[in-house]
């Protein structure tokens, strides 16, 4: 049972990440390999504020969310000037850069050692320190993220995002400032990813830079691509499958280091197979 709850919490965290990346990738058509970094900014902001400043989880989460929004705004301002291959490379490079910062800014982040001893959330005497309670909290955040994402994609703004994905050159002459749209969705998406980061930090109670590297971004990308680009339910499905599938390896009895690597090999293979045979993903509405 505890094991099942653990998997469901991971599902909630990756569901949030998948939903937020899908806004950028599936709806706006910007292939981004930098979501692991936004995830990390949320996690680090929460961890630092909770351990150093002794802030409450929820306060730390909100600060982390704003901070990640600001960082993604700046990153978005750089990336929105790029297109196609250059954009993709830019996202990979930025993720790499942010991990470099996390590793080397040791005064703040404790470098490669990471930050330990992060507390579980408390809220007016309500404690989420046991895992079932934490699961409920995670699912609430997942639901909130889903609602925000749905609100965004169903709005006029969301329709314009899809039009950017389809033909940004044409959309401009109908009066759209593409740059500000990309910037806005990047900011929203980065802020949402920070929620997942906060949950992750306080659930695992320990974070280090390696958790937020480019491979993490590839994993989040796999969640979105597997479930389907441009489908919010798809991202939930993708998160569920990608959290469960590798766990099957556990029953085969692989040693833990090899299991972790095998998991990566499986994501990789999955991406290749999807691109070859089903680039729109399982229930996607949009082909890259």
């Amino acid at each position: 049972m505890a094991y099942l709850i653990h998997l469901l919490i991971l599902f909630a965290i990756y569901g949030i990440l998948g939903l937020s990346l899908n806004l950028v990738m599936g709806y706006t058509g910007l292939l981004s390999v930098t979501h692991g970094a936004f995830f990390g900014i949320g996690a680090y902001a929460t961890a630092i504020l909770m351990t150093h400043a002794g802030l409450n989880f929820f306060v730390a989460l909100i600060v982390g969310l704003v901070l990640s929004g600001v960082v993604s705004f700046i990153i978005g301002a750089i990336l929105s000037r790029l297109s196609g291959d250059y954009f993709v490379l830019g996202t990979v490079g930025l993720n790499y850069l942010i991990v470099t910062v996390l590793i080397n800014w040791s005064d703040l982040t404790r470098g490669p050692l990471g930050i330990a001893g992060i507390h579980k959330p408390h809220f007016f005497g309500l404690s989420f320190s046991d895992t079932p309670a934490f699961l409920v909290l995670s699912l609430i955040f997942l639901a909130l993220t889903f609602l925000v994402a749905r609100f965004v994609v169903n709005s006029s703004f969301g329709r314009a995002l899809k039009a950017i994905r389809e033909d940004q050159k044409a959309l401009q002459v109908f009066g759209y400032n593409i740059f500000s749209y990309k910037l806005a969705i990047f900011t929203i998406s980065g802020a949402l990813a920070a929620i997942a980061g906060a949950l992750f930090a306080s659930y695992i109670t320990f974070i280090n830079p390696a958790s937020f590297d480019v491979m993490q971004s590839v994993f989040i990308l796999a969640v979105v691509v597997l479930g389907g680009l441009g489908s919010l339910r798809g991202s939930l499905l993708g998160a569920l499958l990608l959290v469960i599938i590798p766990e099957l390896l556990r029953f085969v009895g692989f040693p833990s280091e090899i299991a972790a690597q095998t998991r990566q090999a499986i994501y990789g293979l999955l991406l290749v197979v999807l691109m070859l045979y089903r680039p729109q993903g399982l229930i996607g509405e949009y082909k890259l």
Partner: protein
Amino acid sequence: MFSIQTKNLKKHFDGVYAVDDLSIKIETGQITSIIGPNGSGKTTLINTLSGLLEIDGGLVVIEESEKLSKITPHEIPSFGITRTFQNIHLFEQMTILDNILVVLTDRQVFRAIFETHQTFHLKIAEEVLTRVGLWEKRGQLAVNLSYGQRKLLEIARALAMDAKIYLLDEPFAGLFPEMVKIISGIIKELKQESKTVILIEHDMGLIRELSDYVFVLDSGKLLAEGKPSEVLAKREVIEAYLGE
């Protein structure tokens, strides 16, 4: 009254001038055709006027008041300009209705987030899609339409903009006669509504039928201008078309 004037307009690619020191004046409320052989700079002119290409020299004057040496594409609706594309640019993996609604709803980011389309948006969409006969198909994805229907959707999208100046880049190319009829009908209606239409076209019959005035371009330069019957009779125009 002139809706658009170009003054010594220049646009070059790697030093080759596609629009070369071009000065033309387009009368408001008329249908003006721009003709010329392939590569004469017609589409480059339209792309420059709609901000998709940077101006390399000279000016564009709109409504005799806005003097522009730099045009950003997203500004052009504020000058009352809209356009269609020769090589169709639709929002392919979106429904026909969404292709129209997207040019109707709020452009400002923050307002757009908190807005969904309203009944009056739908009403305009219904009106323009009915005009081109696509309202019944509104739920289909644009990518699944036939070539002719795609051309019609481009026209409908431009109509939805309710602009003052319509830049139509080869709207008839490759169409069956019945669709040509629908579009030429729409262009005539636009004139009745005192809109300005700038038309790039190759079919001499249609040019005679529709245009009030014709500019002939060759290698980015103005070769001739005047009423269609006069211009099309000129020897240099015929020569330019037949390639010496």
